[in-house]
């Protein structure tokens, strides 16, 4: 099992957030309404957490191919918000002494973790 996942990167501008809201039909004002978001405790627009989660799936696919996606158990926490014009990268490293469990993450351009968790590759017949 490859020790380091091939990373996947995405630049999150406001248009991308609006496009994501359109495809998911999630128009929570914290994601799409700049005035509302500015008045909220977040102090401005944040991207949908699941928007960045997609990068972990891409990193797994980039490394092992699409077939492996049928055998993944993914467990993550959203730990920090993603802001407009952040560039986020998803990746991961195989845990020490493991041949099936990756510590996975998404980090922004400042190396701040925004998502972290694990991805376990299940046996092919499991």
């Amino acid at each position, binding site marked *: 099992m490859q020790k380091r996942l091939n990373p*996947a990167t*995405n630049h999150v501008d406001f248009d*991308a957030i609006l*496009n*994501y809201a*359109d*495809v*998911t*039909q*999630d128009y929570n*004002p914290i994601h799409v309404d700049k005035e509302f978001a500015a008045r*909220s*405790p977040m102090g401005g627009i944040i991207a949908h*957490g*699941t*928007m960045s*989660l*997609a990068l972990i*799936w*891409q990193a*797994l*696919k980039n490394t092992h191919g*699409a077939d492996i*996606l*049928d*055998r*993944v*158990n*993914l*467990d*993550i*926490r*959203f730990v920090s918000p993603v802001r407009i014009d952040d560039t986020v990268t998803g990746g991961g490293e195989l845990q020490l002494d493991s041949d099936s469990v990756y510590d996975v993450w998404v980090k922004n351009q400042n190396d701040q973790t925004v998502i972290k*968790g694990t991805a376990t590759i299940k046996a092919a017949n499991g």
Partner: protein
Amino acid sequence: MSEEAVFTYDHYEPGKLYGSSEFTVDEKTVAKWRSVYPADNDPGLMPAGMTAMISVDAILTHQSPRPSGGVHGGQSFDMHRMPRIGETLITEVRCINKEIRKGRKWAYSQTRTTSKDTGELLFTGIMTSLVAE
């Protein structure tokens, strides 16, 4: 629950099935997804990131309207087979747990997504929500 009633912490009942949603993985939706993620271009295969979209949409359909200020704190997925473009999916929504930790109210909503045609289990998910007051 009436349409006006807000779905609060008290409405989460561990073990309760709240309903199911149907979603067809159509070319139009996949094209929209690929406008955000051009790399998700495997022929015939639903982009994996759409699992979250399907799960969250089903939960928000059956456990809503929610008070503003809630947080999507965590998410898990157990994949069995990635859906294919053209396939119709059924997603059940169930509450599996809730708890108060350090004064914060957490709810755990499980989704179970199957193929409408075959009944085959495709993936399950658990959404962890910090419930707003």
